[in-house]
Structures are given as C-alpha cells and as structure tokens.
C-alpha cells in the first residue's frame, strides 16, 4: 500500500440491535492527512473512531491501516486515542500514569519524554499529585499527554475540546498542528467548527451513519460549508 492510502475504510457498517450506527462508510486517507469529522449527535462519529481504534468490531466492512486489516504488529503501538474519557487511573499520580503507559508501549528511557509532555500540557508542577485531585480540564490535558506518549502515527480524537479551558484548547491545537506538520495522520471528531476548520486539511460530515460530505479544506468555501453543515444538523 502506498502513501496515498494509509487508512482505507470500505463499506463500513455497524448495527446495535435494531439501530444502524454506520450505514456503509467509505473513506481513504493518505499518510499525513488530518481529517476533521463533523456531524450531529448520533451520527456515528464515535462508533467510527472506535472501530478504527479496534475497540469495536464492525458488522461488515473493512478498515485497513498501513496495509493491514488488523492492528497486530508495529502499527498498534503507534496509535493514539483521545476520547470523552481520560483513560487515566485516578489513584495514580500524573507521573505514574504516564510511566505506566510508557511501560506498556515499551518506550525506551521515557523520563525525558514524560517531563517534556508534562511541561507541554502545563502539569509539570503537579506531576506527583494524584489524578483524582485534578479538575476535569487538567485531567483532559493529562489525557493529551497520555495519547502522545507513544508518538502516534495515527491519532484518533473524539471530542477532544470538550472540558478544555482556553489554554488547554490552544495547547491541543498547537500540538495537532505540529503533528500534522510531521505527517502524522489524524482523525478528529468535534462539534467545534472553528478549531476543526483551523487545524484540519480534510473536512467531512457524517450524518445518520453516512459520510455525506468530504472535501479538502483548501476547496471549501466557509459560507457554503456552514450552510451544508447546518442543513444536516437541522435534518436530524
């Protein structure tokens, strides 16, 4: 598989009993693409992220990452996920959480990396405090550091801006821009139009389980995109 299809999704469907969350999604991303997916609640955005992360099995269809249909081997250790939940242990300190994740990703000499990430998300001075004592925003900032600990080549973000204060949102946006510049492939699901349009190079709208809009950011006229977006929001 060449660089033009680092991630290829074909005919992806997911049904929960009698509800169809995804109704045949096809998508292809090149290495270094940054796709921002918008869509109303219940459109299937989180389901799509979970299937790509191999946290959910699709009812039918395939997801190929870097040429493979499963995430075994090297690619699994290079995926990062930021979701609604922090994936952090409340009883461990910020430092211990990052040490745990660096251990399971077998990162050599992780101390410098952890120090650098804690500085980046502004939590270095609270590194030895338990996560349970952190505010929701601080936990989300630490979650960003956790997701970046393995220097992911594929970063999946599900509503990463929810609960973030202005500082943390800016830190995240800057980090995403830096990762994008380093040719990391990113899929972000958000309701934040400003942040999404500012950082991504491809923009999509998922509605009722279908990818109804997909364009390069450079081709998008903001006014017509907003009309398109609100049409789908209102339709749901």
């Amino acid at each position, binding site marked *: 598989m060449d660089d033009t299809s680092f991630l290829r999704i074909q005919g992806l469907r997911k049904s929960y009993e009698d509800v169809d969350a995804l109704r045949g999604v096809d998508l292809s991303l090149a290495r270094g693409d940054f796709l921002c997916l918008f869509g109303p609640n219940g459109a299937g955005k989180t389901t799509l992220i979970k299937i790509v*992360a*191999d946290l959910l099995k699709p009812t039918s269809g395939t997801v190929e990452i870097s040429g493979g249909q499963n995430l075994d081997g090297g690619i699994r250790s290079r995926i990062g*996920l930021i979701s609604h939940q922090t*994936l952090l242990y409340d009883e461990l300190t910020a430092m211990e959480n990052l040490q745990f994740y660096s*251990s399971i990703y077998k990162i050599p000499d992780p101390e410098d990396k952890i120090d650098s990430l804690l500085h980046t998300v502004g939590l270095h001075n609270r590194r030895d405090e338990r996560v349970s004592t952190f505010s929701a925003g601080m936990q989300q900032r630490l979650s960003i550091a956790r997701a970046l600990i393995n220097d992911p080549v594929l970063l999946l973000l599900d509503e990463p801006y929810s609960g973030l204060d202005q500082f943390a949102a800016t830190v995240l946006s800057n980090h995403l821009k830096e990762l994008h510049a380093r040719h990391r492939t990113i899929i972000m699901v958000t309701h934040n139009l400003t942040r999404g349009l500012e950082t991504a190079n491809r923009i999509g709208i998922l509605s009722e389980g279908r990818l109804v809009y997909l364009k390069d950011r450079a081709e998008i006229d903001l006014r017509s995109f907003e009309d398109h977006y609100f049409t789908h929001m209102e339709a749901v």
Partner: protein
Amino acid sequence: MGLSLVILRKDLLIEIRRKDSVISMIFFGILLLFVMSMAIGIGRKVDPELASGILWISILFSSVLGLGRTFSLEKTNRCIDGLLISPVPPSSVFVAKTSVNFFFMLISEAVIIPVFFALHGDNITIGLAPLLATVLLLNLGFASVGTLFSGITAATRRNEVLLPLLLFPVITPLIAFTVKATGEIFAGVPFGEYSAWLRLMAAFGLIFSCAGYLLFDYVMKEN
C-alpha cells in the same frame, strides 16, 4: 511476562492506596466465619469435613468481593480502552489480573485462616504444609476462573450479581475437591490418602489457567 508485571505492579499500587479490596475481603471472610461458627456453636467439637466447609465457604464468598473489583478500576475513565488499543496482549492482562486475585486471596487467607484456627483449632489436626499446598491450588483455580468470568461480566451493568451466578456452578468441583482434601488434612490422615484430591485441584487450576490465557483475547475484544 514483562507487560503482565507492569499491569500487576500498577494494580498493587492502586490497591495499596485504596485498600478497599483486601480489607473488605478480610472483614467479610471473618464475619462469615463468626456467623457460621455461632450457628454450629463456638468451641463445639466439629467434624473435620464440616470445619473444612466452614473455612472455605468463608474464604470463597469473601474472595468474590475481590474478583468483582478486578475490572472495576479499568472501567473507571474507560482505562480498559487504553489497554485495548495498546500492544498489550489480552493474555498478559489475564496473567496480571489472575496474579492480583491470587495475591489478594493469599493476603486475606493469611488473616482468615488463623482466626479459623482460633475458633476451631482445638478439634482439628493442623498440617501446615499440606494446608499451604491446598491454599495455593485453590487460589490458582479460583483466581483463573474468577478472572475469566470477571472479564466476561465486566461489560454488563449488574456484573456484581452476574459474576457469582456464573462463577459458583463452574467452581463447584474445585470447592468439592478442596473441602475433601482439607477435611482429610484436618482429620490427620496420611498424605497418600488425599493426594488425589490435590492432583484434581492442580488439574482444575491448570485447565482453567490455560483456558483463560487462550480465551481472554475474545473476552476483552467482545467487551
């Protein structure tokens, strides 16, 4: 094995800070011991097999409390997703969680068994080495099956109810082997007469350890 140790160390550190699993297991185990001892009469001479039953029912029922918590800390903040997207094989998670459960049982037994001897020790023979072997084999079987079922029920809403309902029918043979072996240890019979029960316990533990190790991939992915 290295990844299992990382998860094991993390779980032990969390338990050292929370202290809720082991303390609740010990407290509930001693409570059951007293209730059953009072029901039959404290100080009354008890049949070795009955004494054995009292001991293991107290330990096993209290151990279910610990099992229920095996995956609860992974469910908080969806930490389980952090493990699932990582390169950690589910079999390593199984080894780590089984070891944690084994270790927590060992700690609670280190408190409950002396209390049992304080209540009923006058009437039974105390063979420490065979009793230790029985404890280790029981823990292996119980922790393996318990971790497997704890993983299966973790995604359900009423997992604390479902876990014992699924677990006890499966471990009934293990309980029977343990009670028989311990009854004969308490009766002071020679090792050769009850070693078959210990072999059955070892076989049970090995079969379910292997089953859990091989099946845990499906358990975690389906959840």
